[in-house]
């Protein structure tokens, strides 16, 4: 199976492993919902938002990849950046635990590689209606007639009444 071949490569090929993982589509899932796809797992470190389903991170990773793969400078940024991330994570990002990954991300946080992923994925992640729902933002209200008759001024805890 291509999937297993990919995974075997990822887990065995030392420095090249994490690089490939960030570009590729290999993916496994642990029982905790932690993704073993390189980019998805990086997004879980960047945006650890409670109550967001792991599948959202998969989708954001896919959109992010699509955007970045269209950039001419991405292959070189990625090769360099992912290798550094692997190294900072103790050799292989995919084998690192969460605290190692956070430390590795901190080390990489000023690199063009990191900033590029961050800026692209941030837009996708916080524009996703499933993330909005987890934050308590229900999305556009226009189709429901707005909030004029639906709580735009329903605040009840202020110490002073408004005029």
């Amino acid at each position, binding site marked *: 199976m291509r999937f297993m071949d990919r995974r075997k490569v990822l887990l065995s090929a030392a420095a090249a492993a994490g690089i490939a993982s960030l570009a590729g589509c290999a993916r496994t899932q642990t029982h905790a919902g932690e993704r073993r796809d390189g980019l998805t797992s990086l997004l879980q470190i960047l945006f650890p938002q409670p109550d967001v389903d792991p599948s959202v991170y998969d989708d954001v990773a896919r959109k992010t990849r699509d955007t970045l793969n269209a950039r001419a400078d991405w292959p070189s940024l990625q090769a360099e950046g992912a290798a550094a991330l692997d190294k900072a994570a103790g050799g292989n990002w995919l084998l690192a635990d969460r605290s190692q990954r956070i430390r590795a991300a901190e080390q990489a946080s000023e690199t063009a590689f990191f900033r590029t992923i961050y800026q692209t994925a941030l837009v996708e992640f916080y524009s996703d209606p499933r993330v909005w729902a987890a934050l308590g933002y229900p999305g556009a209200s226009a189709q429901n007639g707005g909030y004029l008759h639906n709580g*735009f001024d329903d605040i009840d805890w202020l110490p002073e009444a408004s005029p």
Partner: protein
Amino acid sequence: MTKFEESDNSVVVVIGSGAGGGVVANELAQAGVKVVCLEAGGRLTFSDIVNDERVMDDRMTWRDRRIGEGVLNPRFPAWMCKTVGGTTMYWTGTSVRLQAHEFAPKTTYGLPGASAIDWPLTRDELDPYYALAESKMGVSGTNGLPPLPMNNNMKVLAAGGRALGYKHVTSTGIAINSAPYDGRPQCQQIGFCKSGCVIGAKWSTLYTEIPKAEETGRFELRPNSMALAIETDAAGRASAVIYADAQGAVHRQRARAVCVAGNAIETPRLLLNSATPQHPDGLANGSGHVGRNYVKHVVIGALGFMPGEVHFYRGAQQGGHIADEQRHDETRGFAGGYQIESAAFSPLAVARIAFSGAWGDELADALKDYTRLAATFITGEDPAQARNGVRLHPEEKDDYGLPAPVVSYEDHANAAPMRAHAERQAHALFEAVGATRVVPFRVNMATHNLGTCRMSADPRDGVCDAFGRAHDVDNLYISDGSAFPSSGSANPTLTIVALAIRQAAHIRERMAKGEL
């Protein structure tokens, strides 16, 4: 639809269809003048206006190549719109008159390091036109319109402001219909409306001035038409505008007079790109002030993490303001004042602007309190400086083949103490109503872009006179915020509209006298 021939030299050509261009075009058309309006962007219909900031940003943002310097983003130095309606499609609706002393920044502040001049007109002179502008725009608290009802976010700001002793806390002065007005409906408190009101309750020239002008039969809008240069005749008068259409074909529209309203980057850029052997430094640039004295606003935002639910996404995105700090009071340690407005931010905007660069628990912990957030957006006087401005890049070109604009901006020394004061007040305000945390954040980009073709009494000090007429070119007018000599503390749109109405009246008078 009315169509004019390109050879028709009896038309006034207006470049831009926003607060300046859309208004001056409609005023002239209503008065019997033939107008061709060239708009670089396309025309959206109501079905294109959706209640989603990111989608609207994609549809309206001006993304042509620009280069930023100083504190500006190097690839995206300023935010404005490329769409019919211009930046009236991307604004909060706040419509407050500048204060009398803000028309005299040089006399009042006398700041070292500033290139400030006093406006060549006073608040008293502009007041009748402010009244007309408020009437046309349906500003809350004027013309029988009640204040906009305060949403939760504004109620937090109002309560906090009153706790600090502020007296001027209001939801008047907003060009969002607080009741049905001018054929447009009442605000339904839909939220995230800065990037386009989906029902037309907020004033925008796309909904108001443009269709009204079209009804006269004397107005032709040409969308997707990018002005490339203004031509002058042997007598030195503006005679035609060269522009590219959506297919890139180049046209030459003859003109009786030209009004330029391309916003504070494109307006000076067009004049600079119109250089000829007679005008080697650009058109109307005998003073050397075209593209200089760029002012924005000193801007900060602040988030208050409140003890209860606010749901600040509900209702008008900017639903009121506090005027108490707009005074000039040097005991605060800075010149000029600032306006405190309520503001709501989408989850993406909170992440990208308020927590710029943050990730991990720092970001996620802030966002998980999204429904408890209240927020303010503060705009303050930005002293003019000669070094801030717009020039042409010597090599880089945009997609039209025109030299790309280089936009340069650094803070004046007045900005830091003003920001610090505003941050302290934002902290105190939200804390007075129970905030557990206040996060101020800096905003280097606003949609308020002003000053790059300023008006001046002395032709050596600026580009145009008090009516926006270029000092050097008799029938060329600056019709947008580029003509402001200073920013003041309030949002600029109302003043742009008032000046455009006044300019149109002046042009009609000159036409009646046979001067144009």
